[in-house]
C-alpha cells in the first residue's frame, strides 16, 4: 500500500540518514573544510566513503502517546545503494533498502515494498540514498535543498534541510533536517505532516567501514 510504503521509508530515514561522530581515523582530507564548505563538496566526500556503520538512538514524539518512544540499534550503508537499520529496543525490527526494494520485519513477519512502484515512496527512499551516495541531482528531484556550512578546522559543522517539492510528499513529510560535523551527521530530525517528530542521534560512527561479501550478506538481509 502506498501509505504503508511511505511510512516504512520514513522509518528507514530515521535510522540511516547520518552518523553522529566520525571515527578518529577518518581521513583528514575527507573532512577538510575546503571540501565540505559547499553541498557539492560534502556530497563529493560522501561519494568517496567505502561504507558506513553507526549506533543510533531515536526519540519519537507521537501525539497519541504521553511519553516519547525511544529506540536504539545500528545503521549500515554500503555503496552504491544498500542501507539497513536494525533496531534492538524496544523490540527487534529490521529495515533493508537494496536498490529499489524495501524489506522490513517486525520480528515476526517480513514484508517487501517495491519502491519503484510509487513516486512518493521512491522520492523518500532515493533521497536518503542520494545523500549517502552523493547524488545532488537525485536529491533535487524531490526536495528543495538548503545547505549551510559553519566553521571548524578539522570538521566544520553544517546543516542540510530537505523540504518536499510535491504535494504528495508534503502530505506525509514536512521536513528533514540534518546537522553534521565534517563527514559526520550528528543529528537528524524528521517532521511529519501529522505533527509527530523523530530525532535521531548517532554514535560509534565508522565512515570508512568496509563490508566484506559475507558481512554484506548478513547485514543487508531481513529475517523475520
Amino acid at each position, binding site marked *: 500500500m502506498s501509505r504503508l510504503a511511505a511510512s516504512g521509508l520514513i*522509518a528507514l530515514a530515521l535510522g540511516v540518514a547520518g552518523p553522529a561522530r566520525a571515527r578518529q581515523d577518518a581521513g583528514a582530507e575527507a573532512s577538510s573544510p575546503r571540501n565540505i564548505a559547499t553541498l557539492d563538496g560534502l556530497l563529493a566526500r560522501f561519494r568517496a566513503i567505502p561504507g558506513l556503520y553507526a549506533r543510533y538512538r531515536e526519540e519519537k514524539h507521537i*501525539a497519541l502517546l504521553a511519553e516519547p518512544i525511544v529506540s536504539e540499534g545500528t545503521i549500515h550503508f554500503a555503496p552504491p545503494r544498500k542501507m539497513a537499520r536494525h533496531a534492538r529496543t524496544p523490540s527487534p525490527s529490521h529495515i533493508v533498502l537494496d536498490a529499489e526494494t524495501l524489506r522490513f520485519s517486525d520480528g515476526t513477519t517480513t514484508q517487501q515494498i517495491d519502491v519503484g*512502484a510509487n513516486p512518493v515512496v521512491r522520492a523518500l527512499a532515493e533521497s536518503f540514498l542520494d545523500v549517502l551516495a552523493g547524488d545532488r541531482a537525485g536529491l533535487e528531484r524531490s526536495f528543495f535543498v538548503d545547505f549551510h556550512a559553519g566553521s571548524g578546522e578539522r570538521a566544520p559543522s553544517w546543516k542540510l534541510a530537505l523540504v518536499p517539492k510535491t504535494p504528495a510528499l508534503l502530505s506525509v513529510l514536512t521536513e528533514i533536517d540534518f546537522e553534521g560535523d565534517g563527514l559526520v551527521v550528528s543529528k537528524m530530525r524528521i517532521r511529519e505532516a501529522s505533527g509527530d517528530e523523530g530525532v535521531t542521534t548517532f554514535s560509534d560512527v565508522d565512515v570508512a567501514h568496509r563490508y566484506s561479501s559475507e558481512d554484506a550478506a548478513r547485514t543487508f538481509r531481513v529475517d523475520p
Partner: protein
Amino acid sequence: MALRSWVPVIVSAIVLTALAFYVQAKLVVRSDITDFLPEGQDRRASQLLRELAESELARTMILTVGGPNTGAAIQGTKAFGEQLSHDPDIAWVRSGAPEGIQNAAHDMYFPRRSYFASDRPEEELPHRLSDEGIRESLQALKLALGGPLGPLVRALAPRDPLLLFLAGIDRLRAAQDDSLRLEDGQLVTADGLHGVIFLGTRAGPFEAEPQARVLKAISAAFDGVNREAGGVLRLESTGVNRFNLAAQQSISADIQRVSVVSTVGIVVLFLLVFRSIRYVALGLIPLVAGTICAMAAGLGLFGSIHGLTLVFGSSLIGVGIDYAEHYFVHYTVSRDSADPVTSLLRIWPGLVLGAVTTVAGLVGLAWASFPGLREMAVFSTVGVVTALLSTRWLLPPFMPRKPKPVRLQQKLSALLGRAMLAMMRSRRTVLLLPVFGLIVCALGAPRVRWVDDVSALIAVDPALAAEDVRVQSRVQRADPGRFVAVVGRDDEAALAKNDEVVRRLRAAVKAGEIETFHSAHDLIWSADLQRRSHEMFTRDPTLPARFEAGLMAAGFVPSAFRPLDESYGAEGPGPLTLEELRQSPLVDLVRPFRVVLGHDVALVTTLGGVRDLRTIAARLADLDDVFVLDQRAFLQDAYGRIRTRTLEMIAVGLVVVFLIVHLRYRRVRLSLAAFLPAVLAVATTLAVLALFGSSLNLMHLVGVLMVLSMGADYAIFVVESRDHPEELGATLVSLIVAMLSTVLSFGLLGMSANPALSALGITAALGTLLSVVFAPAALVLLREAPTE
C-alpha cells in the same frame, strides 16, 4: 440405363447438396466429456469441470521473460507486456500491481474494518474485546508505533486502535503466493531473473484459430523486444491453449500425412484391381452421402456433434466403401453379370445383412444412459444405412454397361477360389488358424490392461511439458487440477458455503493434510459473516469506557483517539459484496476464483501440497454442492465408465447381431460362421497388443467396434457365397481389397505419433486383416457338408 434409374440419383444429389449446406452452416463440434457421463452428482461435477475448462482460469497464460539480471528481465518484460496489451485477441495483461489497487483496497476495506475483524467472530472477538484483550492490543499498538510501520500506524490508529485494517492487509498479503514479488512495478520471480506476465485470451483455450493467432502475436512481440535487448532474453510460457494447439497441430499433421498416403494408396489399389478411375470416384459416393446424412441428423437431433462421435461415426461409415468394393468386384469378375442392377441384387441380401448387423451392434449404445453414446449410435446408424442405400440406388446408374475384364482380378479370383476348395479338403489344417487365434487369446488375456488416463490418449511434447513445469514452479505453489469448488444459486450463497469450506480447510492445513490453499475467502466473506463480525463491536455498551481506561493505563492520550463505538460501531457502507470487488481495480485478484455455471455461481479454492485428496473430501463430505475435484482422476474415472459401458453395450450388440444372423441362416453352424470370425479377430487383436506390452484405451475400443462391424460384413459376404463356388473367389477378392483399403486408410494411422490415432489405426488394421483370414476359415470349418 433407363431414365427411371437416374431419378434417385438426381433426387439424392439435390437432397445431399441441401444437407451439405445445412451441415456447413450449422456445424458445431463439442468436446465436453460431460456428454459421456450419466446424470446425477457426477454430472454436476463434470459441468463444473467443463465450465472451468472454458473459464478465465483456462484462458490464462503465464509468460516468464528471463534475463541476465533483474534489470534486463524487468525492462524486457515491461516492453513485452506493453506490446501484448494492444493485441485484439488478448483480453487483459497483468504484469504488476494494477493501477489504483492500493487506494481501492484502502477505500473498500478500511471503512469495513470491523466487518473483517474476524471470520470466527464468536470465538475470537470476545477475548479481543475483554479488558485483557484490550491491554494486549494496546501493547501491540505501542510496539507498532515504534516499529517500521510506525508512521502509517500513527495515521490509522486514532480511528483503528486495534489495527484491524492492517491485520486485514496482512491477511491478504499472507494469502498471496510468495513466489512472486513486485520490483519497479513489475512482477518478478523469487530469483529476480524472470519477469512475469499473466494474460487472458478472449477466445476459449480449445479454439484453435484465435489461439494460433495469440501464440503468433506473442512470438512476434517477444522477437521484437528481444532484438532491442540484444538477444539476451528468454521467453518461456504455459497455458492450456499451448498444449491444445500443439496436440491439434500434431493430429492434423498426422491425419494430413496419412490422408495423402492413403488416398494415393487406395487410388493405386483401385486402379490395379479395377483398371479404371471411375471406381475410385464411385467408391466415395456411399462415404460422402453417409457422412453428410449422419452429420445432418446429428446436428438436427442434438444441435451439435461431439468430437468423439465424429471420429467413431466416420470410422464406421467407412464400411460403406466395403459395400461398394464388394459390388465392384462381383460386377467385374462374375461372368454372368447381365447388368449393374442385376449384379447388385445378387449380393444385396449380404450387403443388407452386413449393414443390419452393424446397426444392430449399435443398438446397445443407443440404449445407454450416456447421451454421448446415444449420439454415436444415431450418427453411425444413419451413416451406415445411407451408405448402404447409396450403394443400392446411386452406384448402378454410373456403372459401365460392359465391364472390362481385369486379368489380375480374374487370376486372383480363380486362385482364391481354388485355395478355398483346397481348404475345404484339408479342414484339419484350417483348424490351426482359429486354434492359433485362441492360443494367442489365452496368452494375451491375462495381460490385457485398460488405461483410462486421458493423458494416454494425448502425446505431449516433452519439451512443452518441461517448459510448463519450469514456468509453473516459478510462479505458483498450487497443485494443478486439484481444487475444491462450492456452487451456490448466487454470489452470497456460494460465499456462505465458502466460509465453511475455508474453516475446514484450515483444520486440514493444521492436521498436515494439505500445505496451503488459495480461496476467494482471502478477499471476501459472506455478508452474514461480515455482519456477525461487525455486530460484536456494538453489543457491549461498556466497551468504549473500558477501552478509554485501557488507553490511559497504557500511556496513551485518550483524547487523540476517536471513541471506540464511533470507530467500529458505525454501520458504515455495510458488508462488501463480490459484485463490488468485481467492479473495482481488485477484479484481477478475485477473477480466478469465480466461475459462472449457468444460473449458479461456483467459487474455486486451489489446493497446494495435497497429501491425500480423500481426507479433504471426507472433511467436506456433508456439505451440499461442495466438490473436491482432481481433474485428472475425475476424467480417468469418466473415461473408465465410458469404456466399461461401451464394452457392456458391445456385448449386448453382439447377442443381437447373432440373433439377426441366425434369423437369416436358421442354422447354428452357418450363423456362427458369419458371427465368430469378427469376434475372434477382435479378441486376437487385443491379445496381440497386450502381448506386445500395449495398454489399451478408449480408442482401441473404437477400433474394436470398427473391426466387429467390418469383420461381420466380411464373414456374411463369405457365407452368402457358400453355394456359389464361382462367386467365392470374387468375394474373397473383394474382402482383400476391402482389407487393403482399410489398412491403407486406418492402418497408416498406426504409425502416428499420437497415441489415440495409433491405437485406432493398429486395432483397425490388425483386426480387419485377421477378419479376412478367419472369415473363409470359419465357413470351411462350420458348414455342414463340404462342397466340391
